[in-house]
């Protein structure tokens, strides 16, 4: 049977505030266990939450970026469940009146077409602590540093129809939150986590099938693989006449399978109610409008500007605006180099090759944008040719300094002195009398083909340092005698 895949995503983005959602503790990643905690984060009786202004501003920014209705009055609610890394016994979240209401987002699919994905809502909530299960004499260790860290949970409509669309959507959300500067977007550090709801229905059927939820998938690649695996599992069950159990599952990347996490229905009995410790958040239209007016450039706008300002192709503009780090790197390189097209080619070409070979993100590039720009300046002013530039980039990647340092240290400066070039060409002509004879005896068409041989000899004799643009006319003149 042919199945249609229905996917909805819940993305938790950790907001990059300095302090926690409800307390004045730091949010720094990797701190010693329980050093970033306060009485509020520990859930001590009588300790009251005070709401972080910046978390509110960030949530409203996101709302604008996905064309959403902003909740002018929003309410915090308690989501009750028992777990030792949640000392209060409830998570402060939002239920009926979230800060961000209905919105939408356009994603670009592989074939270049656009698809609109609905955003159901995005709400503010606090994170829980961490449970460490290893080796505490049969006990569990609790670290509450993460407790009360601000999260924005972004819920999509079930509009997504394939693993590829899901990845494109998550990448777009990632791109937006990092452009806005409201989330670091580091998935490996758990900065952005993704829950995937998947169900299948026979092609043409209106009603949704029973769904499962895969929790906490933490990389783009795993999202895609987890979805493929889960689709296959559900299709096998349905085709054998079985039924899907509504449950939470975990994706195990090592075995490439999903496993049931908990199936007790009471696990979902959260008994939400408005949090009496927090008052309704009331926004003014002026506050909301001011945030809209100061919104930074978003990925789509950046791509459009790259096309108009730098005359880049749509494809190049798309690649270079995909992440804010990439866009910033490109723009700085282009500004230093003074040639945007050349900068685009080097960032997407040579530099990306190096980054890919070591699986590095552009933000981790050992060659800074300023240094790459400096290299391109030396191509532009004919100090070195393109071929030499590639070897200079290798040296820069290996940490040997700036382009100018390397060109100087290795004596790679292109020879642009006419006299010196003439001398090299003369030596090549002297060394190859037979070829010169043949050249002179040939017609013009044939000569054009033969010139490549001499060009190669000249570059070899000059160790690649002769400026090809200068060699050609002199070579032609001397060969013709």
């Amino acid at each position: 049977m042919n199945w249609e895949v229905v996917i909805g995503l819940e993305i938790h983005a950790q907001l990059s505030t300095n302090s926690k959602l409800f307390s004045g503790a730091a949010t720094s990643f990797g701190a010693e266990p329980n050093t970033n905690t306060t009485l509020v984060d520990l859930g001590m009786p009588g300790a009251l939450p005070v709401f972080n202004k910046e978390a509110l501003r960030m949530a409203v920014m996101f709302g604008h970026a996905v064309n959403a209705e902003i909740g002018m009055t929003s309410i915090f609610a308690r989501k009750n469940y028992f777990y030792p890394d949640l000392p209060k016994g409830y998570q402060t979240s939002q239920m009926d009146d979230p800060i961000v209401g209905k919105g939408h987002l356009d994603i670009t699919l592989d074939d270049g077409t656009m698809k609109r994905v609905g955003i159901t809502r995005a709400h503010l909530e606090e994170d829980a602590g961490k449970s460490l299960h290893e080796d505490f004499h049969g006990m569990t260790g609790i670290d509450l540093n993460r407790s009360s860290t601000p999260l924005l949970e972004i819920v999509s409509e079930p509009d997504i129809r394939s693993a590829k669309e899901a990845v494109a959507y998550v990448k777009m959300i990632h791109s937006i939150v990092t452009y806005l500067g409201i989330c670091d977007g580091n998935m490996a550090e758990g900065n952005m986590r993704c829950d995937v709801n998947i169900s299948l229905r026979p092609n043409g059927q209106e009603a949704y099938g029973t769904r499962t939820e895969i929790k906490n998938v933490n990389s783009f690649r795993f999202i895609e693989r987890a979805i493929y695996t889960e689709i296959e599992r559900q299709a096998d069950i349905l085709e054998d006449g079985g039924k899907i159990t509504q449950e939470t599952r975990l994706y195990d990347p090592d075995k490439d399978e999903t496993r049931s996490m908990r199936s007790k229905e009471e696990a979902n009995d959260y008994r939400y109610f408005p949090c009496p410790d927090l008052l309704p958040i009331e926004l003014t239209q002026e506050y909301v409008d001011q945030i809209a007016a100061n919104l930074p450039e978003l990925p789509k706008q950046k791509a459009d500007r790259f096309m108009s300002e730098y005359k880049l192709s749509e494809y190049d503009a798309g690649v270079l605006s995909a992440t804010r780090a990439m866009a910033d790197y490109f723009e700085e390189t282009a500004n230093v180099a003074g040639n945007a097209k050349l900068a685009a080619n080097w960032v997407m070409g040579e530099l990306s090759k190096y980054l890919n070979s070591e699986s590095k993100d552009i933000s981790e590039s050992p060659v800074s944008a300023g240094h790459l720009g400096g290299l391109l300046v030396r191509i532009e002013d004919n100090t070195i040719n393109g071929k030499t530039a590639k070897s200079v980039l290798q040296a820069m990647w290996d940490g040997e300094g700036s382009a100018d340092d390397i060109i100087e240290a290795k004596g790679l400066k292109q020879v642009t002195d006419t006299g010196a070039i003439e001398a090299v060409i003369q030596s090549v002509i002297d060394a190859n009398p037979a070829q010169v004879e043949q050249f002179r005896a040939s017609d013009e068409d044939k000569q054009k083909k033969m010139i490549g041989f001499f060009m190669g000899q000249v570059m070899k004799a000059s160790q690649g340092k002769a400026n090809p643009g200068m060699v050609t006319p002199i070579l032609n003149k001397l060969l013709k005698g």
Partner: protein
Amino acid sequence: MSLEKQDVLKIAHLARLSLDDNDAEQYQNSLTSILDLVEQMQSVDTNGVEPLSNPLEAKQRLRDDVVTEGNRRNAFLANAPQTEAGLFLVPQVIE
């Protein structure tokens, strides 16, 4: 509306309270009487009345995003029955 004993045990389990049979019966009665009161309140006509999430006529005050508290781990851990390596220790929560 009256609660069954099963309901009481489920609510107790969700809150990780251990109840013996006597307790359960007592809670069954007192919770049922609360629900009876709620049922009585249901008869009030609330059409056109905005749901009230907080009885205080005030809105939420906001805090500047500044770290105001430092590391007080030693003081916090001193209250816990068992600690190790800066962590609170609790009975194992996964099998």
